[in-house]
């Protein structure tokens, strides 16, 4: 089986594999599991922080409130903002260890960072109810993105197929917790959604009324087809976001290893 797997390899690739096997099987005096533990745990902070700041500042508002999780903008900006850092980590983990786990690792870090921020800062400190300000989860979509990389072993295919799948799945998996807030409710003689009522009841004094998203069917939203148009456009932007992430992983995280700005 191993021989069959190596048949398609060039001599250089075989030599590289031999070197890696030697590294793996060597008996080390000082390299032990503590390095792994320290690396994986301390990396959680920078990965979670980078993923969360990217989400907060590119798509934050659509993630902060249930009434901003609309069919028009939410699938577009969220898909783009949340795929960037998972893509970078996919590259790092695939190149370093052939682990198809970069996206899942990142999204788990993001999930923890988002919930810590949302619970302590928005809920405890600012007293917003959690059912108004819960963050989305990208973990299920990340598992699928990693699976696509593992099966295809191609970043191009993962970006094209995975980008579109990402946009659809991020929306689909988070539609489940969102659905209860899209039920109709009569409020001051108007039919609104429950999330609209939340948006009216909990004051955001610095967010003017004209910024508030109100669910409605209108010609502007293609008579209800907006959701699907948005998902396709979100998928296109996710492909772009994936390659921004690749640039970060390849040229900011991996390329600089052992390189110096020479002083003359």
């Amino acid at each position, binding site marked *: 089986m191993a021989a069959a797997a190596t048949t398609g390899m060039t001599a250089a690739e075989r030599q590289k594999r031999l070197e890696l096997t030697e590294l793996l099987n*060597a008996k080390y*005096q*000082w*390299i*032990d599991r503590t*390095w792994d533990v*320290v*690396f994986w745990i*301390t*990396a959680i*902070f*920078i990965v*979670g*922080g*980078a*993923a*969360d*700041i*990217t989400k*907060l*500042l*590119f*798509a*934050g*508002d659509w993630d*902060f409130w249930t009434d901003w999780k609309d069919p028009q903008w939410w699938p577009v*900006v969220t898909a783009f903002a949340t795929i960037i850092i998972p893509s*970078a980590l996919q590259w*790092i983990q695939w190149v*370093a260890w052939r682990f198809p786990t970069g996206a899942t690792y990142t999204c788990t870090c993001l999930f923890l960072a*988002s919930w*810590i*921020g*949302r619970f*302590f*800062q*928005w809920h405890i*400190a*600012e007293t*917003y109810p959690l059912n108004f300000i819960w963050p989305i989860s990208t973990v299920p979509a990340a598992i699928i993105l990693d699976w696509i990389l593992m099966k295809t072993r191609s970043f191009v295919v993962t970006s094209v197929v995975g980008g579109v799948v990402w946009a659809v799945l991020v929306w689909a998996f988070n539609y489940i917790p969102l659905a209860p807030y899209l039920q109709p409710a009569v409020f001051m003689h108007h039919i609104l959604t429950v999330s609209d009522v939340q948006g009216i009841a909990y*004051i955001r*004094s*610095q*967010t*003017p009324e004209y*910024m508030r998203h109100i669910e409605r069917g209108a010609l502007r939203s293609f008579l209800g087809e907006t959701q699907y148009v948005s998902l396709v456009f979100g998928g296109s932007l996710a492909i772009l976001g994936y390659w921004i992430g690749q640039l*970060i*992983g390849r040229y*900011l*995280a*991996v*390329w*600089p*290893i*052992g*390189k*110096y*700005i*020479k*002083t003359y």
Partner: protein
Amino acid sequence: MAGSIAMHEVENPTGWWNGWRTLFIGCAALLACNLFLWIWDYRFAFSVGLDSSTHAFTTHYRALFWGELISLGAFTGIWYGWLVRTGRALEGQPISPSEEVRRIAVLWGIIGATSLSLYIEASFWPNWDGAWHQTMVRDTALTPTHIPMFYFFFPLSIILALGAYLYGQYRIPAVYAWKKGFPWSFFLLISAAVLEFVQVAFNEWGHSLWLSEEFFSVPFHWPFVTYGWLASGMFAVWGETIIRLLAIEKEARTVEIHTQTAAAGGA
């Protein structure tokens, strides 16, 4: 004296309370500072932090602002002074493999603390800042959420990243000696933190024109994201020190083989 210390074989350099001690102490100190600042804001943000023209705001928040800057200045002076003074004494001295491994573990400890600091400034506080500015009227750049975030954890990340480089430059010369040039890894990591501070100025200038937050994902907030991306240089620091660790192991094995061969020949 310094030479004898440098060549001293360190027993178990990666013991949790040996090489990794810096990581635990650094992270514990950061978490303690963060807890203090969070409790301070939780206690005073709503009671005295809403109106910057009051005397109470000055005593609680401007005092905190100056206290942070003075503390950071004193910490930086003492730490950098110690790093450079003791580092110069070590320059040119031979280093035993186990001591070099311990130093790499210490560097990873400082980098781990930098990682935590970057998380606190990039995720923990921006969440409260977003919640605060979308619900409160901003009448100063020194808002209760800005003071811990912009004026403590932002400069602290620069201090930690630069301190990590100073540590490496003097104590891990095989990777970070000055004559090798300035490493791209640290250039990206430090520039991430410095650019973030530049962006604070741009952000506050922007808010002087548009006081209302309206929504958080506004274009003049976008440049904050770039620091999170540039901080990927941290992975390069990890990568190049791992390569050095493998080289140390290889060198140690070669020495061991030579010693065994010589012993066998002598016998």
